[in-house]
């Protein structure tokens, strides 16, 4: 008789919380240990640029409660940076020189914000942790001018939070349209117009040529001159935290390379979330930075570990909430330049969906205030239902009706 294996998650974020819950739901009997380097347990990172940044509240912030952990033999160790995984000796080595037994490991170290070399100081911010968000919130006050470098999801959410809190916001991006690379130009233009109408000062379509942080302000240089802000938030993407993986001898490219099931080059070590370059059955190797993907990859790994081999094969889904607007995207990693773009509804009025079609099948969708159409799009993609552009564009055609026509079970 062998003892139940111990599973250790390296990094105590979204993946860790989901792995722990899913393992217990599936009846995994061994000890589960979560090792994180932050001073606190897993929390909702998306809230750091939304609710938490806006009002500082912590409703819904924490992902695991201590009572649940105690009742389910899940040990959470905060403030415990990991040095490397030693799969040969079945242990995880911590930076403080101690070790933890680990028959199975899930590596989930996430990522860290890219920084501008040489630009730092008290007035320069990046947002990844609770502490980052709490520090920034105090600066988002009336009378202060906040610069945001980068008009992606994070940058646009932070600009929205800044003006909502009564500060001024000036947002810089090389692209002429916000979010267009992620969501296409139709939705991008509509979101850009929303930000402009809410008073965000948009400096788009020009490269930032220099940034100088001084004790009393930050100068941002563009071809059009110099803009001085009180604080600058740098939102130019993340780098995966691959150091532990490299030190553990795992194969690492743009992230830790894993197969469809989330397994790394060492069979007892899995990886998921922002750090994982996943071999997606539909899309090929891709590393994405979405909560839902992190959670679903974690759930698939837990299922495999608990005895039922599983792969993560769903289309990637994400959302962003800014001002009162809800935007969602599905399968966008699959979009290719030749795909047919089909708008539905009134995107300029911030109420509609864009679909991407290829050879009579839906490959992706993005919606503004129409999450219900994303729910149907997911079914259309999963079931590979044949659809025509005219049906998708026609508001008198009910989308869930397209599922019934195909005889799909609704």
């Amino acid at each position, binding site marked *: 008789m062998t003892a139940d294996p111990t599973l250790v998650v390296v990094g105590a974020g979204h993946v860790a919380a989901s792995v722990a819950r899913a393992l217990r739901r599936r009846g995994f009997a061994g000890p589960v240990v979560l090792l994180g380097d932050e001073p606190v347990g897993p929390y909702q990172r998306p809230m750091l640029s939304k609710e938490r940044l806006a009002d500082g509240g*912590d409703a819904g912030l924490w992902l695991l409660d201590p009572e649940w952990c105690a009742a389910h033999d899940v040990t959470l160790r905060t403030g415990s940076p990991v040095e490397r995984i030693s799969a040969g000796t079945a242990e995880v080595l911590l930076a403080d020189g101690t070790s933890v037994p680990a028959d199975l490991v899930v590596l989930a170290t996430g990522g860290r914000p890219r920084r501008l070399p040489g630009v730092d100081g008290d007035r320069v911010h990046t947002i990844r942790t609770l502490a980052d968000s709490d520090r920034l919130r105090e600066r988002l006050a009336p009378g202060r001018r906040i610069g945001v470098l980068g008009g992606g999801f994070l940058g646009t959410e932070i600009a929205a939070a800044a003006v909502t809190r009564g500060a001024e916001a000036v947002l810089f991006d090389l692209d002429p349209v916000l979010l267009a690379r992620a969501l296409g130009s139709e939705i991008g233009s509509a979101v850009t117009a929303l930000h402009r109408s809410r008073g965000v000062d948009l400096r788009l379509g020009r490269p930032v040529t220099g940034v100088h942080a001084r004790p009393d302000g930050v100068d941002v240089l563009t071809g059009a001159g110099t803009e001085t802000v009180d604080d600058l938030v740098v939102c130019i993407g993340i780098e995966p935290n691959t150091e532990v993986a490299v030190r553990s001898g795992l194969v690492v490219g743009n992230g830790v390379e894993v197969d469809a099931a989330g397994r790394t080059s060492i069979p007892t070590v899995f990886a998921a979330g922002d750090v994982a370059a996943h071999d997606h059955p539909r899309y090929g190797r891709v590393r994405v930075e979405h909560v839902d993907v992190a959670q679903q990859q974690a759930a698939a790994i837990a299922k495999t570990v608990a005895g039922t081999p599983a792969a993560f094969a769903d289309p990637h889904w994400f959302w962003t909430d800014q001002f009162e607007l809800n935007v969602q995207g599905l399968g966008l990693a699959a979009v290719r330049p030749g795909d047919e773009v089909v708008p539905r509804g009134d995107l300029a009025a911030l109420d509609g969906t864009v679909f991407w079609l290829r050879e009579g099948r839906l490959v992706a969708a993005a919606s503004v205030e129409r*999450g219900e159409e*994303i*729910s149907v799009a997911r079914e259309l993609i999963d079931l590979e239902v044949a659809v025509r552009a005219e049906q998708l564009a026609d508001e008198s055609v*009910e989308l869930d009706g397209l*599922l019934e026509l195909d005889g799909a079970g609704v």
Partner: protein
Amino acid sequence: MSEWVHVAELKELQRRRKKLVTAGDRPIALFLVDGEVYAIDDTCVHRERSLSKGTLLDGQVICPGHQWRFDPRTGHPEDQEGCLATYAVQVSEDGHVLVDPAPVSPRRETTPEAAAAAPAPNPAAR
């Protein structure tokens, strides 16, 4: 003692299988699943989006806000915290849909903090 409120006609549910109604000042979402009418809170426990705008798939209600999946029979979301209140439904022989606005099972907010902020019917209960 229950107070049935006449909120809709069954035939109004036939096509879209969902409808937003009001009973006792509460927004309630009706769903028609396998010939049965179920009534739950219309306001999502997550971020207050309207569940009657959502999608009914495989007997589950998917919230348009962030795609949480609720069971209209129990009000429970799949893999998430919190719970929507459920309400008793009667369909009369001539197709009137009646709802009792006193919940059969209570609404539970997603966190103890949120619950503390909301008026609790019985603060002593744990």
